[in-house]
């Protein structure tokens, strides 16, 4: 049991780490997610109850990207020694990301974070220097998910040592599942002739494309930088779809899908969803969706897009 007695209380900010903790902690932890189903992290502001929950929990798990500014402020506001043990997941994967970057061919490694264009080759500019502004969507790569799950296991074991073997066991099983997922992704992406993904939307999948050596073109950078496409970008995407006969244009969840629609209208491509797992709608939660299930669905859609 935890230091405060009873099952350890664990609070996760958004869905991916919530799901990982659920898989590892099972019913031995008291787990809750701050962002209610369907809520957008941008319009989230914590209520006093939320803060009290954070303050009184045993383990608080968050990503630590740009969108988590409020988290840092809340943690800062706790007195020394009060507050929970915290786990900042972006720390658990940053090294990995660099390692992966080395192993990849430069031309396959696009940085869609600028004009909304994808740079197919020679994308040597920035990207690597901008560690401070890391793309926070680390969980979109199953390999990163493994690292995150491992970090969560460690943290759980440290707040609740009595159950560490239970966590260890669950984590091993879950890691196997993720490994399988990774293999399937790799097989799909290696097999297909096509390497280009076109997004008529924001692009939170940088870790995914980096991982599997995919190229991408997207309308908007990142996830939280809400802006609108330029005419040149949309024209570029249309040309791209036409020239390379791209069969599928992706959009992400919780989007108005308008840009993707526009490209599809103009080119006849099919519109499909690539779920970035930020957060789920109530229906999805009620249907018992998990990270692995969502990623498997993504895999299906990827297959269609790459063939």
């Amino acid at each position, binding site marked *: 049991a935890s230091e405060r007695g009873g099952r350890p209380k664990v609070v996760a900010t958004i869905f991916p780490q919530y799901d990982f903790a659920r898989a590892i902690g099972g019913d031995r932890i008291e787990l809750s997610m701050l962002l209610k189903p369907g809520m957008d992290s941008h319009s989230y502001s914590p209520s006093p109850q939320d803060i009290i929950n954070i303050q009184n929990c045993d383990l608080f798990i968050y990503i630590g990207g740009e969108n988590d500014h409020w988290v840092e402020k809340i943690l800062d506001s706790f007195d020394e020694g009060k507050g929970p043990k915290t786990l900042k997941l972006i720390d658990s994967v940053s090294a990995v990301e660099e390692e992966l970057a080395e192993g990849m061919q430069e031309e396959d490694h696009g940085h869609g974070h600028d004009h909304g264009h994808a740079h197919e080759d020679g994308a040597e500019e920035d990207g690597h220097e901008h560690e401070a502004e890391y793309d926070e969507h680390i969980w979109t790569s199953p390999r990163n998910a493994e690292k995150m799950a491992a970090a969560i296991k460690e943290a759980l074991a440290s707040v609740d040592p009595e159950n560490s073997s239970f966590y260890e066991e669950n984590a091993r099983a879950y890691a196997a599942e993720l490994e399988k997922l990774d293999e399937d992704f790799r097989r799909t992406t290696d097999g297909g002739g096509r390497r280009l993904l076109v997004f008529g939307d924001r692009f939170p999948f940088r870790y995914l494309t980096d991982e599997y050596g995919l190229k991408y073109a997207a309308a908007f950078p990142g996830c939280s930088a809400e802006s*609108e496409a330029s*005419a040149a970008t949309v024209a570029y995407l249309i040309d791209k779809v036409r020239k390379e006969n791209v069969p599928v244009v992706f959009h992400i969840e919780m989007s108005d899908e308008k840009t993707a629609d526009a490209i599809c209208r103009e080119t006849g491509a099919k519109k499909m969803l690539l779920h970035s797992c930020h957060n789920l709608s109530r229906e999805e939660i009620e249907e018992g969706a998990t990270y692995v299930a969502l990623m498997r669905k993504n895999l299906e859609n990827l297959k269609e897009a790459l063939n």
Partner: protein
Amino acid sequence: MDLIAEMLSYKFLVRAATVGLMVSLCAALLGVSLVLKRYSMIGDGLSHVGFGALAAAVATGASPLGLSIPVVIVAAVLLMRLTDGSGIKGDAAIGLISTSSLAAGVTAISLSSGINTDVCNYMFGSILAMSKGDVRLSVATSAAVLLLFLLCYNRIFAVTFDENFARATGVNAGRYNMVIAALTGVTIAVGMRLMGALLISGLIIFPAVTSMRLFKSFRGVVLSSAAVSLSSYLAGLVLSYAAGLPAGASIVLVNLVFFLAFAAAGRIR
């Protein structure tokens, strides 16, 4: 010239130009009255109302767009009502209504779980992503707005300039205030959905304020607003294509250039 021909070869740009020109014409014409009546921030304010409506719609299970468009129109009418004779000025009324709706929306979200809404969806539209249905809707509503504006031009002038006088000569000032409110509501509701609140706000404020730098007659200001609005829209679109800038932001920036030019010209005279 080549650039333009190239642009015209994309259907989505042709659509954006058609819809954009219609909507920006409406916004510019109504903008003159709105700016004079101290409703400059109405686009920004109503976008918050739209957010509140959306949140409420999802909370109660109603159709989001089916609810938010009429709510925005009703809010525009309410706004004009709120300021009628109560001594609350336009901008304060906009502030009241918009902060209240935002607060209500945020509360609704926090009470009912399972909403995917984002205030920012209302700030930035996707001006370039219009379906045929969007085009038809906006052309039809804009045409109606333009026609009504033209027919009521003299009455709108009189009611904006001196409501008491208009009322004393037997003009139903309340009715024409409603007409202005309804036209505004429709233009903003449609424009906001297609072009986003940022751009609609800009299209309402800039042409009118710019034209007032140089023109002294109501007619001059109205005509110049229309001209400024149409030219900045086109120039902004071309700029966005040529320089790869976001479309809405480019249009606003071209408008800003017009404003600075007119202000400088007004100084010199």
